[in-house]
């Protein structure tokens, strides 16, 4: 059935359904994952198919049920736990980063914890400082978690099936503004053709969304779609941007970044997470470490939330979250940039 298009939310719930059919050890826990179908639709229709034993509504006890996922995984099951918004990580981070992420290592590889934590990220709909963050920088910083951040329905299904089958803990982060929900504006590029049969997408492989010779835009999640629009605008002015969708942060496809920047000589990192001490810095640093093989033609440029909490009011929020026009402006600036002379010691 070529041409079947799904929203990202539909692709995710289909992936769940197929894996739950395939493996009786897979079950889902979380707040409102049952009858409600997940606040962002990620578990829609599952309780009807699999019943409340396999699609379990939990109390508002994130430490309790994420910790329980660890124990159930150690006992041989493959739990999925939904943290409704990533912004709530602060009430349960200990179980996530000190236990889920470290027990395998601390046991010398003897303990396997095939747990998937799914969570919603991102702003743009004025949900303010405690419901709009991305925060993948935090989870990529601490070791032991694979971090997956899909940008569209096709990737979302393949990466989720990969995540469920992985014997390691995976944090799977979906941006609310690309889920294709009937109640939130979204980027239509995120709704794609999705094969019916199960398939996997390996972690650690960035996707070249668009080829270009002039500068590389490294990005992910919803920002991919903003970058695509920006690239079209730039193309009209004769600037050909190459867009890389990272897809996973751990593992990170460093080679794809290096290869693209080696080709274009210019790097713009466009991100919706906080600017400081996070993803944009990491990508910039990877390039900075390889200046022996990369001849930069302009200073590196970074876009992200400028180290302020996400403000509620629309004009403020639109200002701090990088938009298409910010990407266009930053790309043009990069095209005009020059690196300092000298330096070949």
């Amino acid at each position: 059935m070529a041409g079947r298009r799904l929203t990202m939310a539909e692709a995710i719930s289909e992936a769940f359904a197929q894996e739950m059919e395939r493996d009786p050890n897979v079950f889902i826990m979380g707040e409102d994952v049952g009858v409600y179908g997940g606040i962002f639709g990620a578990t829609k229709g599952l309780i009807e198919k699999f019943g409340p034993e396999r699609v379990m509504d939990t109390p508002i006890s994130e430490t309790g049920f994420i910790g329980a996922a660890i124990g159930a995984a150690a006992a041989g099951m493959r739990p999925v736990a939904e943290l409704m918004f990533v912004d709530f990580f602060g009430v349960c981070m200990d179980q996530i980063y000190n236990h889920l992420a470290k027990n395998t290592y601390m046991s010398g590889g003897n303990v396997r914890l095939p747990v998937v934590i799914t969570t919603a990220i991102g702003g743009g709909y004025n949900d303010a400082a405690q419901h709009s963050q991305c925060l993948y920088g935090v989870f990529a910083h601490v070791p032991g978690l694979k971090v997956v951040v899909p940008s569209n329905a096709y990737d979302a299904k393949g990466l989720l099936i990969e995540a469920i089958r992985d014997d390691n803990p995976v944090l799977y982060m979906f941006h609310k503004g690309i889920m294709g929900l009937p109640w939130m504006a979204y980027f239509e590029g995120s709704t794609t053709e999705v094969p019916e049969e199960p398939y996997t997408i390996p972690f650690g492989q960035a996707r070249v969304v668009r080829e270009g010779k002039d500068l590389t835009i490294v990005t992910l999640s919803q920002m991919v779609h903003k970058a695509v629009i920006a690239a079209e605008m730039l193309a009209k002015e004769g600037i050909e941007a190459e867009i890389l969708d990272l897809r996973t942060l751990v593992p990170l496809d460093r080679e794809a970044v290096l290869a693209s920047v080696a080709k274009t000589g210019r790097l713009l990192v466009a991100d919706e997470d906080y600017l400081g001490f996070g993803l944009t810095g990491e990508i910039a640093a990877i390039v900075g470490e390889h200046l022996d093989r990369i001849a930069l033609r302009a200073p590196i440029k970074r876009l992200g939330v400028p180290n302020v909490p996400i403000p509620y009011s629309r004009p403020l929020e639109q200002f701090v979250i990088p938009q298409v026009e910010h990407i266009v402006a930053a790309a043009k600036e990069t095209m005009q940039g020059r690196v300092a002379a000298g330096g070949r010691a």
Partner: protein
Amino acid sequence: MSPSKAQLLWMYEKMVEIRYYEETMAKVYMEGKLPPHIQKGLAFDIGSGPVPGEMHLAAGQEPVAVGVCAHLRDEDTVVGTHRPHHFAIAKGVPLDKMTAEIFGKKTGLGKGKGGHMHLFDPAHNFSCSGIVGASLPPACGAALAAKKRGQDRVAVAFFGEGAANQGAFHESLNLAALWQLPAIFVCEDNHWAISVPKEKAVSVASVADRACAYGMPGVCVPENDPLQVFEAVGEAVARARRGEGPTLIEVKTFRYFGHFQGDAEVYRPKDEVKHLRALDPIPKLAARLKQDGVLTAQEEEAIVARARQRVDEAFAFARQSPYPAPQEALEDVFV
């Protein structure tokens, strides 16, 4: 402890004001959110209109807010939840600045940076949070400060029955009991935590039953009635002011709207709200006050008119206020 006539009338007026506020907000919230003004294919767009983002309304839960706040002074602390309007209004937070905040305007309590779940009014010692369970620890802190300074102030943390399963609940009640803090923990049991009913979330019948785990009094208010709330809280506040420590109170209440606006409420029995409408605490209180000779039909009319006018003025103020300039987003991270 029985409320004075002034207190009775205050509670009634505030309930009317809260209800009208929430109903007005429900309407305004829908402005610009429906086709044809929004992205094609959507039924509703949460991010559009003059009041974007999530919106949690408390219509039905007025008795809790007024029954508690009738006992409080400006210098007492209240920490509310993600569903904060009724608490804020009852605590005396200025309606105009509060509404402007919810509209994201520069004249708002937080210059538009906080929004509906993040209303801060230091003048009335009011704050709230969008994180479930997060109201309890800072209320302990306010109570601790009062105790350290020898002030007879109290602090109230409001929270839902869903929040009673968060770790923060436990840690706070233990601290308050250990340190004998002048704190009152008020649980609004509206039966639902989004779609999850109390019996799937709380392992005991009443959250008040958890007081035994801390050695503090636990009181269950069995009806959504401001007078019952007033009585239970009156005793708790008096104990707290006397330095006799904290109390846990659960009030059986109900919400008329969905968890947030736009909630299709697939989880809710079809006629639940219809049934609850018959129990509306506002006409019930009016009837009782009239019966007791505390309220005349004329006074009632005046109260309703006054309350509505205040609300209408606040919304007008909010609409007319300017938005902050985009670059103001970079201010106020630090003072």
